């Protein structure tokens, strides 16, 4: 079936959260029988747009039409009735039920008032065979890989309503052959005339399967493109907010030491963790600021976590100052002088109900152990010093940290680690969700730390700030390290090319 008429149009959709615009005047069009990629970096508004479309969130202005008819979805159920189904990355099925039941839950075929298992199994089997999936539909879902579970979710979505199918990052946890299988199913559904919205951050996949691409950035529509007319580098540039043609060479600040003979602090050989990050080699020397670049989900955070021991590596080895490190728990890493600022500040960083003081001294205290409590005076002194250095704004040092703004919370976590005087810092998105001023402060801090002789790994989704601070860049794609750039090679163009991969012409 060829690409048909428009089945879904979203026109001038706007939505804000607490006064912050999440979407402003976004247009989106989906045609029958096409696979349409929705792309954008963190905070671009992809997920908000999907939520608005599925009725999980209300929109403030604009219009949604299905096959020309205006609709309003108040809940995902209502969206489903209107023909819009969603399959999320987190599979929303019941792992304890059989495949067939997951397909028919809530609408099981009945005979004489009782569930007719025979018919249900038969129908389920037929449904899966039509998609060329051969599985035992009577077996429980948790016997199957995530890929199959995803396909079951798709089958359910398609079986209930069949005009618009939204796939929200379905491939993040699938391997290559599983992705291939998923794609063949997507092609099949496309032939049946479905419109598929494919949310992903894997550029390769977009070029493999999609017909058109819509790019969002900062809640605004950047543009809608035919896949054939948009080179990869251009796509990356549009997502990151840089017009590629207009790229001027941004001069990198003198960051870190340029000496080649600086002592190696961290040396990773073939370190990896199955399902998270493929084995990689990495050397970090004193005074290095190493940027890890890559799109969201490229394995950049996972790489950091594996080094710290937050996720236990299952291959390779890690050396620090030429001594083999055996990290069994984060405490071992802390003791060897590694600091880790996690990406998810709220869930993994701050301890919300504890005071600023307690949050700041926590890591040092953990390192010292239970019995060597830092004196009250000492704690207050440390807190005051770092509140001063980092300009942490809080009503007082005993205020619960959850009352602070995001930027200040982040500074508290930073202060926590600086207090332990680490040799090696891993900072995963330290500047996310905080204001420009604070961002600059943190960047300056990173450069200064390197000057003091510390080694730093800095992860950010904003290339520009990494250009400014890093002396080496590691590029990640599809869970593996695909390149390393140093000094003069670090240009926006090179980085984007490396991220985009393929023949980035």
């Amino acid at each position, binding site marked *: 079936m060829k690409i048909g008429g428009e089945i879904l149009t979203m026109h001038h959709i706007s939505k804000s959260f607490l006064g912050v615009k999440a979407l402003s005047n976004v247009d989106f069009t989906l045609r029958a029988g096409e696979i349409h990629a929705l792309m954008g970096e963190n905070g671009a508004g992809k997920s908000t747009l999907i939520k608005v479309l599925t009725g999980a969130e209300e929109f403030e202005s604009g219009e949604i039409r299905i096959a020309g008819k205006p609709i309003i979805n108040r809940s995902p159920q209502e969206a489903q009735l209107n023909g819009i189904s969603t399959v999320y990355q987190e599979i929303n099925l019941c792992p304890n039920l059989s495949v067939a039941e997951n397909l028919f839950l809530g609408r099981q075929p009945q005979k004489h008032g009782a569930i007719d298992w025979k018919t249900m199994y038969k129908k389920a089997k037929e449904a899966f065979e039509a998609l060329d999936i051969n599985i035992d539909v009577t077996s429980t879902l948790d016997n199957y890989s995530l890929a199959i579970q995803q396909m079951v979710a798709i089958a359910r979505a398609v079986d209930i309503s069949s005009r618009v199918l939204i796939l929200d990052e379905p491939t993040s946890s699938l391997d290559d052959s599983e992705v291939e299988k998923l794609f063949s199913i997507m092609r099949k559904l496309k032939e049946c005339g479905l419109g598929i919205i494919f949310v992903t951050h894997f550029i390769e996949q977009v070029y493999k399967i999609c017909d058109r691409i819509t790019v969002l950035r900062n809640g605004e529509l950047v543009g809608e493109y035919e896949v054939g007319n948009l080179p990869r580098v251009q796509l990356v540039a549009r997502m990151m907010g840089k017009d590629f043609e207009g790229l001027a060479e941004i001069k990198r600040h003198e960051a870190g030491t340029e000496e080649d003979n600086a002592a190696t602090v961290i040396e990773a050989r073939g370190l990896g963790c199955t399902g998270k990050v493929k084995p990689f080699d990495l050397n970090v020397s004193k005074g290095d600021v190493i940027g890890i670049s890559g799109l969201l989900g490229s394995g950049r955070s996972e790489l950091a976590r594996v080094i710290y021991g937050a996720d236990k590596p299952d291959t390779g080895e890690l050396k620090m100052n030429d001594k083999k490190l055996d990290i069994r728990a984060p405490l071992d890493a802390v003791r060897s002088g590694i600091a880790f600022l996690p990406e998810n500040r709220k869930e993994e960083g701050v301890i919300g109900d504890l005071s600023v003081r307690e949050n700041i001294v926590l890591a040092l205290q953990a390192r*010292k152990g239970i019995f060597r409590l830092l004196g009250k005076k000492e704690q207050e002194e440390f807190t005051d010093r770092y509140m001063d250095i980092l300009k942490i704004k809080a009503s007082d040092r005993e205020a619960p940290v959850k009352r602070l703004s995001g930027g200040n919370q982040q500074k508290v976590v930073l202060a926590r680690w600086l207090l332990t005087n680490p040799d090696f810092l891993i900072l995963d998105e330290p500047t996310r969700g905080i204001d420009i001023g604070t961002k600059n402060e943190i960047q300056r801090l990173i450069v200064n730390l390197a000057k003091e002789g510390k080694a730093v790994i800095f992860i950010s989704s904003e290339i520009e700030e990494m250009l400014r601070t890093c002396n080496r860049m590691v590029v990640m794609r599809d869970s593996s390290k695909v390149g390393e750039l140093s000094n003069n090679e670090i240009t926006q163009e090179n980085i984007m090319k490396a991220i985009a991969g393929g023949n980035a012409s």
Partner: protein
Amino acid sequence: MKKSNIKSKHIINHPLFLPLVCLLLVLIVNLIQTPSFFKITIQNGVLYGFIIDIINRSSGLIIMAVGMTLVVASSGGTDISVGAVSALAGAVCVAVLGTGESYRMPYIISLLLPLIAGMVCGAFNGFLVSYMRVQPMVATLILFTAGRGIAQLITGSFILYVKPVQFQYLGSFLPNVPIPTPCFVATFVILITWLTLKYTSLNMFIQSVGINPKASHLVGLNSKMITFFTYVFCSVCAAGAGLISVSRTASIDANNVGLNVELDAILAVAIGGNSLSGGKFSLFGSVIGAITIQALTTTLYAMHVSADQLPLYKAIVVIIIVALQSPEPKRWYYMIKSGISSGRSAREAN
């Protein structure tokens, strides 16, 4: 004027404000009922009066509440085996001393062995909760029933009496001391716990693990060990309370030592202003809570409620406190409020 306002707000926001108000309320009710409530006299060389009685009888509960506070703080769950563990400890104690005219073994062993037994029980609970990831209540449910069973086996299902009169010193009065011994023990436990929390980093670690176990782990805390420790400590406290209870009556009745006390201990923690979902805690809040409950119990006894009937009223109090702590009523309140206002704004828009 404004300054006093701020000051009063400060008092109201103090974590111990509500527990103290609760205690005061119960005491006032008592005072109205029995005008001689606050009267303290000296009879036979010891202090005597309602207040003394309440403090004396609440000692065991205070000790348990101290342990329970830490369990709740670190794991967001409760230990319902405390009553059974105290019965078990009591049984061990009596079994050590025997029922003869003199002790069978040195007295000190009769203190140490039960506490070690408590430690073993706590280690079992803690192992299930922190290393096997079993929900706290289910994990402790096992000892909740089996603990009493083991106690029955030790005593051979008999009520055993310890004859030497010195045995009662722990549960009643030391010679020539007018203040009941349990008060000293309770004070001792509170002090030791308080000092430990003050002079080690356990206070911060327990709260941190209770609030955000993931972040705590990443910062380098051994979350499992800390939770494990609180369960061991809680059971040792329960064993201590069991010893007092056995000494009080100079006998062990494995069916009745620490009966229904698990509810009291949980209630003490909740009345003390501590959230049952873990995190921040106030040791003294729980102590006040324990005294409040004993005062409440005394009041109910005075109203001719039998011991067996007490749980009925306490259960209602528990459910009210827990319901008030839960976010759901607040959400409803805001939903109704915003529903009204948004309805209004919609009408205005029309």
